[in-house]
């Protein structure tokens, strides 16, 4: 399958197969009505067997914390004028601010709407994030 290479934009590569749609949603890529976005699922990879890739055909600001949260093994390639200008390994962010919402109905964030939803990485090995207010595990 061929997808055109992009001239200026962002390629999120080495996404664990199956995680690209979650990343697409959390990055809000569905709301970019004037930007071409390609999601490639289950692409063959020498390193990973199968992987997902997202190509964004514009140099838009991307929240790297979201990428690190959904898939810390993903890499980000920034392309300008057809050239790879930056390749970033992401890793897991220590803090997530307004990336995901706390679903605990007893949490103070459920009633005080102006509060930021903040999660901290509490267990790197098991990729566990907990709400800083009520310590409920993110899922």
């Amino acid at each position, binding site marked *: 399958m061929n997808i055109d290479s992009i001239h200026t934009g962002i390629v999120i590569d080495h996404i664990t197969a199956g995680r690209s749609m979650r990343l697409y949603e959390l990055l809000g890529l569905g709301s970019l009505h004037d930007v071409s976005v390609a999601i490639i699922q289950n692409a063959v990879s020498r390193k990973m067997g199968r992987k997902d890739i997202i190509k964004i055909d514009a140099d838009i600001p991307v929240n790297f914390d979201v990428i690190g949260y959904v898939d810390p093994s993903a890499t980000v390639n920034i392309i300008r004028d057809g050239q790879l200008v930056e390749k970033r390994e992401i890793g897991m962010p220590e803090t997530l601010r307004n990336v995901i919402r706390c679903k605990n109905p007893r949490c103070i964030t459920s009633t005080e709407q102006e509060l930021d939803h903040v999660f901290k990485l509490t267990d790197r090995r098991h990729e566990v994030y907990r709400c800083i*207010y009520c310590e409920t595990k993110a899922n």
Partner: protein
Amino acid sequence: MKSVIDILDLSVEELDALIATAEDIIANPAKYAEKCHGKKLATLFFEPSTRTRMSFEAAMYELGGNVLSMTDAASSSASKGESVADTAKVISCYADIIAMRHPKEGAALVAANNATIPVINAGDGGHCHPTQTLADLLTIWREKKRFSGLTVGLCGDLKFGRTVHSLINALSRYEDMHFVLISPTELKLPSYVKEESLKAKGIPYRQTTSLEEAMPELDVLYMTRVQKERFFNEEDYLRLKDSYILDPAKMNLGREDLIVMHPLPRVNEISVAVDKDPRACYFKQVLNGKYMRMALILKLLEEAAS
């Protein structure tokens, strides 16, 4: 600005210092009678809790300070829709320190993030209640004179009991602790507490459903209430409820130097006949709570002034 939201906000060294201060308060109350002269504690209780509020207020009065009290959220600005953040900013203009209880988990952290004075969490829903844990720690210290080499039995509702989780977190920072988790299967300690507080630190523990079987090995027995509403059906509740009632017959199985604790209020999980047993420490625990709140108020006010 130092606030105390979770017991883990206090290091082991800080806990040791608080215990030393509480011991000194008990030995020399007159020395502390004017320590907080001219200072005001605001007790913001968004849900009723007469005893915790009174403990904080008694603590402040015994330090020579004054108290501003909000005891009913319905008559406060919260009922008009004021946020916790705004309440904390406003009360910071009137008082020197806040003790706050709120039904929502994390409310005390929101207050601490917005106040310009120290905030003590006096209970945020089912989440944390650090000053109860301070009372528990002082009781163990005064009765056992050590925090190492102890076998601590936790009995009853280990699933929802916030005091149990806090106490495990606090004690698991000391050396050579052993835990015996005594509960019905339905109310076992949540796996994340076992994983993060016990297994990750290599702390030995075992689980049992029998209080009788565990009694002989315990140095400390921490009782909590098994509530009917926690069970899926009444049959299970009726089958199990008496197993977790501590009575003189079960006390006979315990060691001579056992201590029995309970965060109170008790309903029927410790029979009144046990109160006469010198090993029953739950009313001492209440008094110890006041001394530890005095020590904590003093520490936070001193740090805020420096």
